[in-house]
Protein backbone atom coordinates (compact mmCIF):
# COMPACT_ATOMS: atom_id res chain seq x y z
CA UNK A 1 0.00 0.00 0.00
CA UNK A 2 2.63 2.43 1.09
CA UNK A 3 4.90 1.38 -1.70
CA UNK A 4 2.17 1.89 -4.26
CA UNK A 5 1.62 5.37 -2.86
CA UNK A 6 5.33 6.04 -3.05
CA UNK A 7 5.43 5.25 -6.70
CA UNK A 8 2.38 7.33 -7.50
CA UNK A 9 3.83 10.29 -5.67
CA UNK A 10 7.23 9.86 -7.27
CA UNK A 11 5.71 9.37 -10.65
CA UNK A 12 3.75 12.59 -10.28
CA UNK A 13 6.47 14.70 -8.71
CA UNK A 14 9.65 13.42 -10.17
CA UNK A 15 9.36 12.50 -13.79
CA UNK A 16 9.30 16.14 -14.85
CA UNK A 17 12.48 17.05 -12.97
CA UNK A 18 16.02 15.88 -13.63
CA UNK A 19 16.60 12.12 -13.66
CA UNK A 20 18.79 11.94 -10.56
CA UNK A 21 19.43 14.05 -7.50
CA UNK A 22 21.78 13.12 -4.68
CA UNK A 23 22.44 14.04 -1.04
CA UNK A 24 25.60 13.43 0.88
CA UNK A 25 27.21 13.66 4.30
CA UNK A 26 30.78 13.08 3.14
CA UNK A 27 32.95 14.50 0.38
CA UNK A 28 35.21 11.48 -0.09
CA UNK A 29 35.57 7.85 0.98
CA UNK A 30 37.96 6.91 3.79
CA UNK A 31 41.15 6.02 1.98
CA UNK A 32 44.77 5.56 3.04
CA UNK A 33 48.00 5.29 1.11
CA UNK A 34 48.07 1.56 1.64
CA UNK A 35 44.42 0.62 1.62
CA UNK A 36 41.63 1.08 -0.88
CA UNK A 37 38.18 1.77 0.51
CA UNK A 38 36.16 -1.44 0.75
CA UNK A 39 32.49 -1.33 -0.31
CA UNK A 40 30.12 -4.18 0.43
CA UNK A 41 27.50 -4.56 -2.29
CA UNK A 42 24.25 -5.63 -0.64
CA UNK A 43 21.89 -8.01 -2.49
CA UNK A 44 20.28 -6.02 -5.29
CA UNK A 45 16.64 -5.18 -4.86
CA UNK A 46 15.74 -4.93 -8.51
CA UNK A 47 12.53 -5.97 -10.22
CA UNK A 48 11.61 -5.49 -13.85
CA UNK A 49 7.99 -5.59 -14.95
CA UNK A 50 5.84 -5.19 -17.98
CA UNK A 51 2.81 -2.91 -17.68
CA UNK A 52 -0.31 -4.51 -19.10
CA UNK A 53 -2.85 -2.37 -20.94
CA UNK A 54 -4.81 -1.94 -17.71
CA UNK A 55 -1.75 -0.90 -15.70
CA UNK A 56 -1.12 -4.23 -13.96
CA UNK A 57 2.60 -4.75 -13.28
CA UNK A 58 3.67 -8.13 -14.57
CA UNK A 59 6.96 -9.32 -13.03
CA UNK A 60 9.42 -10.53 -15.69
CA UNK A 61 11.85 -13.21 -14.53
CA UNK A 62 14.20 -13.20 -17.53
CA UNK A 63 14.49 -9.41 -17.64
CA UNK A 64 15.04 -9.26 -13.88
CA UNK A 65 17.80 -11.90 -13.94
CA UNK A 66 19.51 -10.14 -16.85
CA UNK A 67 19.29 -6.78 -15.07
CA UNK A 68 20.89 -8.28 -11.95
CA UNK A 69 23.87 -9.49 -13.96
CA UNK A 70 24.26 -6.25 -15.91
CA UNK A 71 24.12 -4.08 -12.79
CA UNK A 72 26.63 -6.17 -10.84
CA UNK A 73 29.14 -6.25 -13.68
CA UNK A 74 28.75 -2.52 -14.33
CA UNK A 75 29.31 -1.79 -10.62
CA UNK A 76 32.31 -4.11 -10.54
CA UNK A 77 33.90 -2.36 -13.52
CA UNK A 78 33.16 1.12 -12.21
CA UNK A 79 34.57 0.39 -8.75
CA UNK A 80 37.71 -1.11 -10.23
CA UNK A 81 38.16 2.08 -12.26
CA UNK A 82 37.81 4.14 -9.08
CA UNK A 83 40.29 2.00 -7.13
CA UNK A 84 37.58 0.85 -4.76
CA UNK A 85 37.54 -2.75 -3.57
CA UNK A 86 34.06 -4.22 -3.94
CA UNK A 87 32.91 -7.16 -1.80
CA UNK A 88 29.67 -8.95 -2.60
CA UNK A 89 27.16 -10.01 0.03
CA UNK A 90 26.85 -13.78 0.37
CA UNK A 91 24.59 -15.11 3.06
CA UNK A 92 26.70 -18.18 3.84
CA UNK A 93 29.76 -16.09 4.53
CA UNK A 94 28.46 -15.26 8.01
CA UNK A 95 28.30 -17.85 10.80
CA UNK A 96 24.76 -19.35 10.88
CA UNK A 97 23.85 -17.61 14.13
CA UNK A 98 24.51 -14.17 12.63
CA UNK A 99 22.95 -14.63 9.19
CA UNK A 100 19.52 -13.45 10.10
CA UNK A 101 20.85 -10.25 11.71
CA UNK A 102 22.76 -9.36 8.56
CA UNK A 103 19.74 -10.04 6.37
CA UNK A 104 17.68 -7.84 8.69
CA UNK A 105 20.23 -5.06 8.24
CA UNK A 106 19.83 -5.41 4.51
CA UNK A 107 16.07 -5.04 4.86
CA UNK A 108 16.49 -2.06 7.16
CA UNK A 109 18.72 -0.44 4.59
CA UNK A 110 15.99 -0.93 1.99
CA UNK A 111 13.25 0.49 4.20
CA UNK A 112 15.30 3.53 5.23
CA UNK A 113 16.21 4.09 1.58
CA UNK A 114 12.57 4.07 0.56
CA UNK A 115 11.77 6.53 3.34
CA UNK A 116 14.52 8.83 2.14
CA UNK A 117 13.24 8.57 -1.41
CA UNK A 118 9.81 9.54 -0.19
CA UNK A 119 10.54 12.26 2.35
CA UNK A 120 13.80 13.84 1.29
CA UNK A 121 12.82 14.77 -2.23
CA UNK A 122 9.36 16.31 -2.18
CA UNK A 123 8.64 19.41 -0.11
CA UNK A 124 5.04 18.26 0.29
CA UNK A 125 6.22 15.11 2.07
CA UNK A 126 9.18 16.55 4.00
CA UNK A 127 9.37 15.37 7.62
CA UNK A 128 9.10 18.35 10.00
CA UNK A 129 11.73 16.86 12.32
CA UNK A 130 14.33 16.74 9.57
CA UNK A 131 14.09 20.47 8.72
CA UNK A 132 15.73 19.76 5.40
CA UNK A 133 18.75 18.05 6.98
CA UNK A 134 20.15 14.89 5.44
CA UNK A 135 21.03 12.91 8.58
CA UNK A 136 19.53 9.46 8.13
CA UNK A 137 21.16 6.50 9.85
CA UNK A 138 20.71 2.76 10.32
CA UNK A 139 22.51 2.98 13.67
CA UNK A 140 25.81 1.38 14.74
CA UNK A 141 24.47 -2.19 14.54
CA UNK A 142 25.87 -2.06 10.98
CA UNK A 143 29.24 -2.90 12.57
CA UNK A 144 28.16 -6.53 12.36
CA UNK A 145 28.46 -6.22 8.56
CA UNK A 146 31.82 -4.52 8.93
CA UNK A 147 33.13 -7.41 11.01
CA UNK A 148 31.90 -10.21 8.79
CA UNK A 149 32.86 -8.63 5.46
CA UNK A 150 35.76 -6.46 6.57
CA UNK A 151 34.20 -3.56 4.67
CA UNK A 152 34.01 0.20 5.33
CA UNK A 153 30.79 0.92 3.51
CA UNK A 154 27.70 -0.86 2.21
CA UNK A 155 26.07 0.05 -1.09
CA UNK A 156 22.41 -0.69 -1.57
CA UNK A 157 20.71 -0.54 -4.96
CA UNK A 158 16.95 -0.54 -5.39
CA UNK A 159 15.31 -0.23 -8.81
CA UNK A 160 11.81 -0.80 -10.12
CA UNK A 161 11.93 -0.71 -13.88
CA UNK A 162 8.82 -1.09 -15.98
CA UNK A 163 8.10 -1.26 -19.67
CA UNK A 164 4.87 -0.67 -21.53
CA UNK A 165 3.45 -3.74 -23.24
CA UNK A 166 2.05 -3.49 -26.75
CA UNK A 167 -1.42 -3.09 -25.27
CA UNK A 168 -0.20 -0.35 -22.94
CA UNK A 169 1.48 1.50 -25.78
CA UNK A 170 -1.82 1.47 -27.64
CA UNK A 171 -3.55 2.82 -24.54
CA UNK A 172 -1.07 5.69 -24.32
CA UNK A 173 -1.71 6.52 -27.96
CA UNK A 174 -5.49 6.46 -27.68
CA UNK A 175 -5.32 8.30 -24.36
CA UNK A 176 -3.39 11.08 -26.04
CA UNK A 177 -6.06 11.39 -28.74
CA UNK A 178 -8.82 11.52 -26.13
CA UNK A 179 -6.86 13.93 -23.95
CA UNK A 180 -6.36 11.45 -21.09
CA UNK A 181 -2.85 10.95 -19.71
CA UNK A 182 -1.86 7.29 -19.45
CA UNK A 183 1.50 6.69 -17.73
CA UNK A 184 3.93 4.36 -19.50
CA UNK A 185 7.07 2.64 -18.24
CA UNK A 186 9.39 4.24 -15.72
CA UNK A 187 12.71 3.66 -14.01
CA UNK A 188 12.51 4.49 -10.33
CA UNK A 189 15.04 3.66 -7.66
CA UNK A 190 17.94 4.69 -5.53
CA UNK A 191 21.50 3.92 -4.54
CA UNK A 192 22.46 4.38 -0.93
CA UNK A 193 25.87 4.27 0.76
CA UNK A 194 26.13 3.52 4.48
CA UNK A 195 29.21 3.99 6.64
CA UNK A 196 29.38 0.65 8.47
CA UNK A 197 31.15 2.16 11.49
CA UNK A 198 28.41 4.69 12.32
CA UNK A 199 25.50 3.30 10.32
CA UNK A 200 24.96 6.73 8.76
CA UNK A 201 23.63 7.02 5.23
CA UNK A 202 26.53 9.08 3.95
CA UNK A 203 25.38 9.35 0.35
CA UNK A 204 22.09 8.82 -1.41
CA UNK A 205 21.00 9.22 -5.00
CA UNK A 206 17.51 8.92 -6.36
CA UNK A 207 16.67 7.89 -9.89
CA UNK A 208 13.29 8.68 -11.41
CA UNK A 209 12.75 8.91 -15.13
CA UNK A 210 10.67 7.56 -17.95
CA UNK A 211 13.76 6.37 -19.81
CA UNK A 212 16.55 3.80 -19.55
CA UNK A 213 16.60 0.05 -20.04
CA UNK A 214 18.13 -2.50 -17.71
CA UNK A 215 17.47 -5.43 -20.01
CA UNK A 216 20.52 -4.87 -22.19
CA UNK A 217 24.10 -4.57 -21.04
CA UNK A 218 24.92 -1.25 -22.61
CA UNK A 219 21.78 0.56 -21.51
CA UNK A 220 22.06 -0.96 -18.02
CA UNK A 221 25.58 0.41 -17.82
CA UNK A 222 24.18 3.87 -18.57
CA UNK A 223 21.68 3.51 -15.70
CA UNK A 224 24.43 2.43 -13.30
CA UNK A 225 26.63 5.35 -14.36
CA UNK A 226 23.73 7.69 -13.71
CA UNK A 227 23.03 6.11 -10.32
CA UNK A 228 26.56 6.33 -8.96
CA UNK A 229 28.01 9.22 -10.99
CA UNK A 230 28.58 11.41 -7.93
CA UNK A 231 29.21 8.63 -5.43
CA UNK A 232 32.11 9.97 -3.30
CA UNK A 233 35.48 8.66 -4.51
Amino acid sequence: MRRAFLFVVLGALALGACATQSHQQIAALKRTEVQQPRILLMPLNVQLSEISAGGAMEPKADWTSAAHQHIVSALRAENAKRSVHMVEFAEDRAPPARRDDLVQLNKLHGVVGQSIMMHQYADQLALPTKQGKFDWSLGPSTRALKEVYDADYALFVFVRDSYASAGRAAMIFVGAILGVHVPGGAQIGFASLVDLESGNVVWFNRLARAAGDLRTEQAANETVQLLIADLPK
Partner: protein
Amino acid sequence: MTLGRRHFVGGCSACAALALAGCVTDGVKPAPISPGYKPNAATDEGGIWQVMDNVEAETKRSRFLVRDAELNAYVRDIACRLAGNHCSDVRVYITRTPAFNATMAPNGMMTVWTGLLLRAQNEAQLAAVLGHEIGHYVNRHSLQAYRNARDTADIAAFLSIGLAGAGVGFVGSMVQLAALASIFAFSRDQEREADDVGLKLMSDAGYQPLQASKVWEQLIAEAAASERPRERDVFFATHPAQEERAATLRTKAATLPAGDTYEKRYRAQLKKFRTTLFEDEVRLRQYGQSLKLFEMLGRDGQPDAELAYFTGEVYRQRNADGDDAKAREQYERAIAMADAPPEAYRGLGLIHMRGGDQVRADEAFRQYLKLKPDAEDRAIIRSYVQIRG
Protein backbone atom coordinates in the same frame (compact mmCIF):
# COMPACT_ATOMS: atom_id res chain seq x y z
CA MET B 1 -4.17 -9.50 -22.19
CA THR B 2 -4.79 -10.83 -25.67
CA LEU B 3 -8.47 -10.48 -24.95
CA GLY B 4 -7.95 -6.82 -24.09
CA ARG B 5 -5.93 -6.12 -27.20
CA ARG B 6 -8.37 -7.83 -29.53
CA HIS B 7 -11.28 -5.89 -28.15
CA PHE B 8 -9.28 -2.74 -28.22
CA VAL B 9 -9.02 -2.96 -31.99
CA GLY B 10 -12.78 -2.87 -32.25
CA GLY B 11 -12.90 0.37 -30.32
CA CYS B 12 -13.85 1.12 -26.75
CA SER B 13 -17.58 1.29 -27.12
CA ALA B 14 -17.50 -2.24 -28.44
CA CYS B 15 -15.41 -3.49 -25.53
CA ALA B 16 -17.73 -1.75 -23.08
CA ALA B 17 -20.68 -3.60 -24.53
CA LEU B 18 -18.82 -6.91 -24.56
CA ALA B 19 -17.56 -6.53 -21.02
CA LEU B 20 -20.91 -5.62 -19.54
CA ALA B 21 -22.46 -8.59 -21.28
CA GLY B 22 -20.20 -10.80 -19.14
CA CYS B 23 -17.42 -11.88 -21.46
CA VAL B 24 -14.77 -10.60 -19.09
CA THR B 25 -14.43 -13.42 -16.57
CA ASP B 26 -14.17 -16.05 -19.23
CA GLY B 27 -10.49 -16.59 -18.31
CA VAL B 28 -8.69 -19.38 -20.16
CA LYS B 29 -7.96 -22.23 -17.76
CA PRO B 30 -4.31 -23.31 -17.77
CA ALA B 31 -3.67 -27.05 -18.15
CA PRO B 32 -2.88 -28.98 -14.93
CA ILE B 33 0.79 -28.86 -14.02
CA SER B 34 2.96 -31.87 -14.88
CA PRO B 35 5.45 -33.33 -12.36
CA GLY B 36 8.83 -31.61 -12.42
CA TYR B 37 7.46 -28.64 -14.38
CA LYS B 38 9.41 -25.38 -14.41
CA PRO B 39 8.04 -22.41 -16.36
CA ASN B 40 9.94 -20.51 -19.03
CA ALA B 41 11.51 -17.40 -17.45
CA ALA B 42 10.21 -15.20 -20.26
CA THR B 43 6.54 -15.92 -19.49
CA ASP B 44 4.10 -14.38 -17.02
CA GLU B 45 4.24 -17.64 -15.06
CA GLY B 46 8.04 -17.43 -14.92
CA GLY B 47 7.75 -13.93 -13.45
CA ILE B 48 5.36 -15.08 -10.75
CA TRP B 49 7.58 -18.05 -9.86
CA GLN B 50 10.62 -15.81 -9.51
CA VAL B 51 8.77 -13.50 -7.14
CA MET B 52 7.59 -16.53 -5.13
CA ASP B 53 11.12 -17.98 -5.07
CA ASN B 54 12.19 -14.77 -3.33
CA VAL B 55 9.34 -15.11 -0.86
CA GLU B 56 10.40 -18.71 -0.25
CA ALA B 57 13.98 -17.65 0.45
CA GLU B 58 12.59 -15.23 3.05
CA THR B 59 10.37 -17.93 4.53
CA LYS B 60 13.34 -20.27 4.95
CA ARG B 61 15.04 -17.62 7.00
CA SER B 62 12.02 -16.59 9.03
CA ARG B 63 12.09 -16.65 12.82
CA PHE B 64 8.54 -17.93 12.68
CA LEU B 65 9.51 -21.09 10.86
CA VAL B 66 9.04 -24.22 12.98
CA ARG B 67 12.29 -26.09 12.44
CA ASP B 68 11.72 -29.26 14.46
CA ALA B 69 12.99 -32.02 12.17
CA GLU B 70 10.57 -34.69 13.35
CA LEU B 71 7.43 -32.58 12.94
CA ASN B 72 8.59 -31.35 9.54
CA ALA B 73 9.25 -34.89 8.37
CA TYR B 74 5.82 -35.97 9.61
CA VAL B 75 3.92 -33.20 7.78
CA ARG B 76 6.11 -33.52 4.69
CA ASP B 77 5.35 -37.24 4.49
CA ILE B 78 1.61 -36.55 4.62
CA ALA B 79 1.91 -33.92 1.87
CA CYS B 80 4.03 -36.31 -0.16
CA ARG B 81 1.59 -39.19 0.08
CA LEU B 82 -1.15 -36.83 -1.13
CA ALA B 83 0.90 -35.18 -3.88
CA GLY B 84 1.97 -38.48 -5.45
CA ASN B 85 4.06 -37.75 -8.55
CA HIS B 86 4.28 -34.10 -7.52
CA CYS B 87 5.91 -35.01 -4.21
CA SER B 88 9.34 -33.61 -5.09
CA ASP B 89 7.78 -30.39 -6.44
CA VAL B 90 6.07 -29.52 -3.15
CA ARG B 91 8.09 -28.02 -0.32
CA VAL B 92 6.45 -27.77 3.10
CA TYR B 93 7.11 -24.96 5.58
CA ILE B 94 5.47 -24.99 9.00
CA THR B 95 5.05 -21.42 10.19
CA ARG B 96 4.19 -20.29 13.69
CA THR B 97 0.96 -18.48 12.82
CA PRO B 98 -1.92 -19.01 15.25
CA ALA B 99 -4.75 -19.10 12.73
CA PHE B 100 -6.37 -21.80 10.65
CA ASN B 101 -4.80 -21.87 7.20
CA ALA B 102 -2.36 -23.43 4.82
CA THR B 103 -1.16 -21.79 1.63
CA MET B 104 0.22 -23.04 -1.64
CA ALA B 105 2.32 -20.84 -3.89
CA PRO B 106 2.48 -21.47 -7.64
CA ASN B 107 6.15 -22.51 -7.38
CA GLY B 108 5.37 -25.39 -4.99
CA MET B 109 5.98 -23.65 -1.66
CA MET B 110 3.39 -24.86 0.83
CA THR B 111 3.00 -23.24 4.21
CA VAL B 112 1.19 -24.98 7.03
CA TRP B 113 0.15 -22.69 9.86
CA THR B 114 0.44 -23.89 13.44
CA GLY B 115 -3.16 -22.74 14.04
CA LEU B 116 -4.18 -25.49 11.63
CA LEU B 117 -2.16 -28.08 13.58
CA LEU B 118 -3.97 -27.06 16.77
CA ARG B 119 -7.38 -27.25 15.10
CA ALA B 120 -7.04 -30.45 13.11
CA GLN B 121 -8.33 -33.23 15.36
CA ASN B 122 -6.65 -36.02 13.46
CA GLU B 123 -4.30 -36.69 10.59
CA ALA B 124 -7.17 -37.04 8.13
CA GLN B 125 -8.31 -33.48 8.83
CA LEU B 126 -4.81 -32.16 8.24
CA ALA B 127 -4.61 -34.24 5.06
CA ALA B 128 -7.93 -32.76 3.89
CA VAL B 129 -6.49 -29.25 4.05
CA LEU B 130 -3.14 -30.18 2.51
CA GLY B 131 -4.93 -32.07 -0.28
CA HIS B 132 -7.04 -28.98 -0.96
CA GLU B 133 -3.88 -26.87 -1.25
CA ILE B 134 -2.26 -29.39 -3.57
CA GLY B 135 -5.44 -29.10 -5.66
CA HIS B 136 -4.73 -25.37 -6.06
CA TYR B 137 -1.15 -26.14 -7.05
CA VAL B 138 -1.84 -28.90 -9.55
CA ASN B 139 -4.51 -26.83 -11.32
CA ARG B 140 -2.32 -23.71 -11.35
CA HIS B 141 -4.99 -21.60 -9.70
CA SER B 142 -2.66 -18.74 -8.81
CA LEU B 143 -1.67 -18.31 -12.42
CA GLN B 144 -5.28 -18.44 -13.51
CA ALA B 145 -6.33 -15.91 -10.85
CA TYR B 146 -3.42 -13.67 -11.79
CA ARG B 147 -4.23 -13.75 -15.49
CA ASN B 148 -7.86 -13.18 -14.77
CA ALA B 149 -7.10 -10.18 -12.56
CA ARG B 150 -4.72 -8.77 -15.12
CA ASP B 151 -7.12 -9.21 -17.99
CA THR B 152 -10.01 -7.86 -15.96
CA ALA B 153 -7.91 -4.82 -15.08
CA ASP B 154 -7.18 -4.42 -18.77
CA ILE B 155 -10.84 -4.35 -19.64
CA ALA B 156 -11.62 -2.00 -16.77
CA ALA B 157 -8.94 0.38 -17.96
CA PHE B 158 -10.26 0.31 -21.49
CA LEU B 159 -13.71 1.06 -20.18
CA SER B 160 -12.68 3.84 -17.86
CA ILE B 161 -10.60 5.54 -20.53
CA GLY B 162 -13.47 5.34 -23.01
CA LEU B 163 -15.93 6.64 -20.45
CA ALA B 164 -13.60 9.35 -19.20
CA GLY B 165 -13.37 10.58 -22.77
CA ALA B 166 -17.18 10.59 -22.94
CA GLY B 167 -17.40 12.70 -19.79
CA VAL B 168 -18.88 10.09 -17.46
CA GLY B 169 -15.84 9.55 -15.26
CA PHE B 170 -17.58 8.24 -12.17
CA VAL B 171 -19.02 5.25 -14.02
CA GLY B 172 -15.42 4.20 -14.55
CA SER B 173 -14.97 3.46 -10.89
CA MET B 174 -18.18 1.39 -10.81
CA VAL B 175 -16.82 -0.68 -13.63
CA GLN B 176 -13.57 -1.18 -11.74
CA LEU B 177 -15.55 -2.39 -8.74
CA ALA B 178 -17.40 -4.88 -10.89
CA ALA B 179 -14.08 -6.05 -12.31
CA LEU B 180 -12.77 -6.55 -8.77
CA ALA B 181 -15.84 -8.54 -7.78
CA SER B 182 -15.34 -10.86 -10.74
CA ILE B 183 -11.91 -11.81 -9.41
CA PHE B 184 -13.49 -13.05 -6.18
CA ALA B 185 -16.30 -14.86 -7.98
CA PHE B 186 -13.68 -16.69 -9.95
CA SER B 187 -11.78 -17.86 -6.91
CA ARG B 188 -14.89 -19.48 -5.44
CA ASP B 189 -14.93 -21.81 -8.45
CA GLN B 190 -11.29 -22.56 -7.83
CA GLU B 191 -12.02 -23.36 -4.19
CA ARG B 192 -14.63 -25.88 -5.25
CA GLU B 193 -12.24 -27.47 -7.68
CA ALA B 194 -9.54 -27.64 -5.00
CA ASP B 195 -12.08 -29.25 -2.64
CA ASP B 196 -12.81 -31.95 -5.20
CA VAL B 197 -9.15 -32.68 -5.83
CA GLY B 198 -8.34 -32.62 -2.11
CA LEU B 199 -11.13 -35.06 -1.29
CA LYS B 200 -9.97 -37.50 -3.95
CA LEU B 201 -6.33 -37.27 -2.90
CA MET B 202 -7.08 -37.87 0.78
CA SER B 203 -9.40 -40.74 0.02
CA ASP B 204 -6.86 -42.35 -2.34
CA ALA B 205 -4.26 -42.08 0.43
CA GLY B 206 -6.53 -44.06 2.79
CA TYR B 207 -7.89 -41.19 4.90
CA GLN B 208 -11.48 -40.95 6.02
CA PRO B 209 -13.06 -38.51 3.52
CA LEU B 210 -15.78 -37.47 5.95
CA GLN B 211 -13.10 -35.56 7.91
CA ALA B 212 -12.90 -32.95 5.12
CA SER B 213 -16.40 -31.69 5.82
CA LYS B 214 -15.70 -31.89 9.57
CA VAL B 215 -12.86 -29.40 9.16
CA TRP B 216 -15.21 -26.81 7.68
CA GLU B 217 -17.97 -27.57 10.17
CA GLN B 218 -15.54 -26.97 13.05
CA LEU B 219 -14.45 -23.70 11.44
CA ILE B 220 -18.01 -22.53 10.96
CA ALA B 221 -18.79 -23.26 14.61
CA GLU B 222 -15.66 -21.43 15.70
CA ALA B 223 -16.37 -18.40 13.52
CA ALA B 224 -19.95 -18.24 14.81
CA ALA B 225 -18.57 -17.96 18.36
CA SER B 226 -16.25 -15.11 17.39
CA GLU B 227 -16.74 -11.58 18.70
CA ARG B 228 -15.23 -10.32 15.46
CA PRO B 229 -17.25 -9.65 12.32
CA ARG B 230 -16.78 -12.53 9.92
CA GLU B 231 -15.50 -10.44 7.06
CA ARG B 232 -12.45 -9.45 9.10
CA ASP B 233 -11.40 -13.04 9.59
CA VAL B 234 -8.23 -13.80 7.63
CA PHE B 235 -9.48 -17.20 6.59
CA PHE B 236 -13.02 -16.33 5.63
CA ALA B 237 -11.82 -13.42 3.54
CA THR B 238 -10.23 -15.94 1.17
CA HIS B 239 -12.51 -18.96 1.68
CA PRO B 240 -16.15 -17.87 1.40
CA ALA B 241 -19.29 -19.98 1.32
CA GLN B 242 -18.18 -22.56 3.90
CA GLU B 243 -21.60 -24.00 4.62
CA GLU B 244 -22.19 -24.95 1.02
CA ARG B 245 -18.74 -26.45 0.70
CA ALA B 246 -19.12 -28.50 3.89
CA ALA B 247 -22.42 -29.91 2.63
CA THR B 248 -20.97 -30.78 -0.78
CA LEU B 249 -17.96 -32.48 0.77
CA ARG B 250 -20.16 -34.48 3.13
CA THR B 251 -22.34 -35.72 0.29
CA LYS B 252 -19.36 -36.67 -1.87
CA ALA B 253 -17.58 -38.39 1.02
CA ALA B 254 -20.49 -40.78 1.41
CA THR B 255 -19.66 -42.33 -1.97
CA LEU B 256 -16.01 -43.02 -1.05
CA PRO B 257 -14.35 -45.78 1.03
CA ALA B 258 -14.57 -45.26 4.82
CA GLY B 259 -10.83 -44.77 5.40
CA ASP B 260 -9.03 -44.04 8.67
CA THR B 261 -8.61 -40.85 10.74
CA TYR B 262 -5.15 -41.75 12.15
CA GLU B 263 -6.02 -39.78 15.25
CA LYS B 264 -3.66 -41.56 17.67
CA ARG B 265 -0.64 -41.06 15.45
CA TYR B 266 -1.53 -37.39 14.98
CA ARG B 267 -1.92 -36.71 18.70
CA ALA B 268 1.36 -38.44 19.49
CA GLN B 269 3.21 -36.32 16.92
CA LEU B 270 1.69 -33.06 18.13
CA LYS B 271 2.15 -33.77 21.85
CA LYS B 272 5.34 -31.89 22.46
CA PHE B 273 4.16 -28.78 20.55
CA ARG B 274 0.71 -28.59 22.06
CA THR B 275 1.63 -26.23 24.90
CA THR B 276 3.09 -23.67 22.50
CA LEU B 277 0.09 -23.97 20.18
CA PHE B 278 -2.28 -23.37 23.10
CA GLU B 279 -0.22 -20.44 24.37
CA ASP B 280 -0.24 -18.78 20.95
CA GLU B 281 -4.00 -19.25 20.67
CA VAL B 282 -4.70 -17.80 24.12
CA ARG B 283 -2.50 -14.80 23.34
CA LEU B 284 -4.85 -13.79 20.53
CA ARG B 285 -7.46 -12.75 23.10
CA GLN B 286 -10.25 -14.03 20.87
CA TYR B 287 -12.14 -15.42 23.84
CA GLY B 288 -15.38 -16.62 22.26
CA GLN B 289 -13.57 -18.36 19.43
CA SER B 290 -10.95 -19.96 21.68
CA LEU B 291 -13.58 -21.28 24.11
CA LYS B 292 -15.51 -22.84 21.22
CA LEU B 293 -12.32 -24.34 19.82
CA PHE B 294 -11.31 -25.79 23.21
CA GLU B 295 -14.80 -27.18 23.70
CA MET B 296 -14.52 -28.99 20.35
CA LEU B 297 -11.03 -30.26 21.17
CA GLY B 298 -12.42 -31.81 24.37
CA ARG B 299 -15.45 -33.32 22.74
CA ASP B 300 -14.21 -36.88 23.14
CA GLY B 301 -14.42 -36.43 26.92
CA GLN B 302 -10.93 -37.79 27.55
CA PRO B 303 -9.19 -36.31 30.62
CA ASP B 304 -6.98 -33.49 29.36
CA ALA B 305 -5.30 -31.37 32.04
CA GLU B 306 -3.66 -29.03 29.56
CA LEU B 307 -6.93 -28.30 27.79
CA ALA B 308 -8.65 -27.59 31.13
CA TYR B 309 -5.83 -25.26 32.21
CA PHE B 310 -5.92 -23.22 28.99
CA THR B 311 -9.72 -23.03 29.09
CA GLY B 312 -9.34 -21.62 32.60
CA GLU B 313 -6.84 -19.09 31.26
CA VAL B 314 -9.30 -17.82 28.63
CA TYR B 315 -12.08 -17.40 31.22
CA ARG B 316 -9.73 -15.66 33.64
CA GLN B 317 -8.51 -13.26 30.95
CA ARG B 318 -11.97 -12.53 29.59
CA ASN B 319 -13.09 -11.67 33.12
CA ALA B 320 -16.79 -11.26 32.24
CA ASP B 321 -19.59 -11.89 34.74
CA GLY B 322 -19.33 -15.42 36.08
CA ASP B 323 -15.99 -16.11 34.33
CA ASP B 324 -14.02 -16.33 37.58
CA ALA B 325 -16.14 -19.26 38.77
CA LYS B 326 -15.73 -21.00 35.40
CA ALA B 327 -11.98 -20.39 35.39
CA ARG B 328 -11.70 -21.78 38.93
CA GLU B 329 -13.64 -24.88 37.93
CA GLN B 330 -11.31 -25.49 34.99
CA TYR B 331 -8.14 -24.96 37.03
CA GLU B 332 -9.41 -27.30 39.72
CA ARG B 333 -10.28 -29.91 37.11
CA ALA B 334 -6.74 -29.65 35.73
CA ILE B 335 -5.18 -29.88 39.20
CA ALA B 336 -7.13 -33.05 39.92
CA MET B 337 -5.28 -34.80 37.10
CA ALA B 338 -1.86 -36.36 37.47
CA ASP B 339 -0.24 -34.39 34.63
CA ALA B 340 -1.58 -30.96 35.65
CA PRO B 341 0.62 -28.06 34.48
CA PRO B 342 2.01 -26.16 37.52
CA GLU B 343 0.58 -23.00 35.96
CA ALA B 344 -2.90 -24.22 36.87
CA TYR B 345 -2.01 -23.38 40.50
CA ARG B 346 -0.90 -19.93 39.46
CA GLY B 347 -4.22 -19.38 37.64
CA LEU B 348 -6.12 -20.59 40.65
CA GLY B 349 -4.12 -18.26 42.90
CA LEU B 350 -4.90 -15.27 40.68
CA ILE B 351 -8.62 -16.10 40.73
CA HIS B 352 -8.61 -16.38 44.54
CA MET B 353 -6.65 -13.15 44.78
CA ARG B 354 -9.19 -11.37 42.60
CA GLY B 355 -11.98 -12.81 44.76
CA GLY B 356 -10.32 -11.56 47.96
CA ASP B 357 -9.56 -15.04 49.33
CA GLN B 358 -5.96 -14.37 50.32
CA VAL B 359 -5.41 -17.56 52.27
CA ARG B 360 -6.30 -19.79 49.31
CA ALA B 361 -4.46 -17.52 46.87
CA ASP B 362 -1.25 -17.84 48.92
CA GLU B 363 -1.67 -21.57 49.14
CA ALA B 364 -2.03 -21.90 45.35
CA PHE B 365 0.88 -19.55 44.62
CA ARG B 366 3.14 -21.48 47.03
CA GLN B 367 2.22 -24.72 45.33
CA TYR B 368 3.04 -23.16 41.93
CA LEU B 369 6.46 -21.99 43.14
CA LYS B 370 7.13 -25.36 44.73
CA LEU B 371 6.35 -27.23 41.52
CA LYS B 372 8.15 -24.73 39.30
CA PRO B 373 10.87 -23.10 41.41
CA ASP B 374 12.63 -21.58 38.40
CA ALA B 375 9.48 -20.12 36.80
CA GLU B 376 10.17 -16.95 34.85
CA ASP B 377 7.54 -15.05 36.80
CA ARG B 378 8.61 -16.38 40.22
CA ALA B 379 9.60 -12.93 41.50
CA ILE B 380 6.21 -11.38 40.94
CA ILE B 381 4.32 -14.40 42.20
CA ARG B 382 6.50 -14.44 45.31
CA SER B 383 5.73 -10.76 45.81
CA TYR B 384 1.99 -11.52 45.76
CA VAL B 385 2.54 -13.89 48.66
CA GLN B 386 5.00 -11.69 50.54
CA ILE B 387 3.03 -8.45 50.34
CA ARG B 388 0.40 -9.90 52.53
CA GLY B 389 2.93 -11.68 54.73
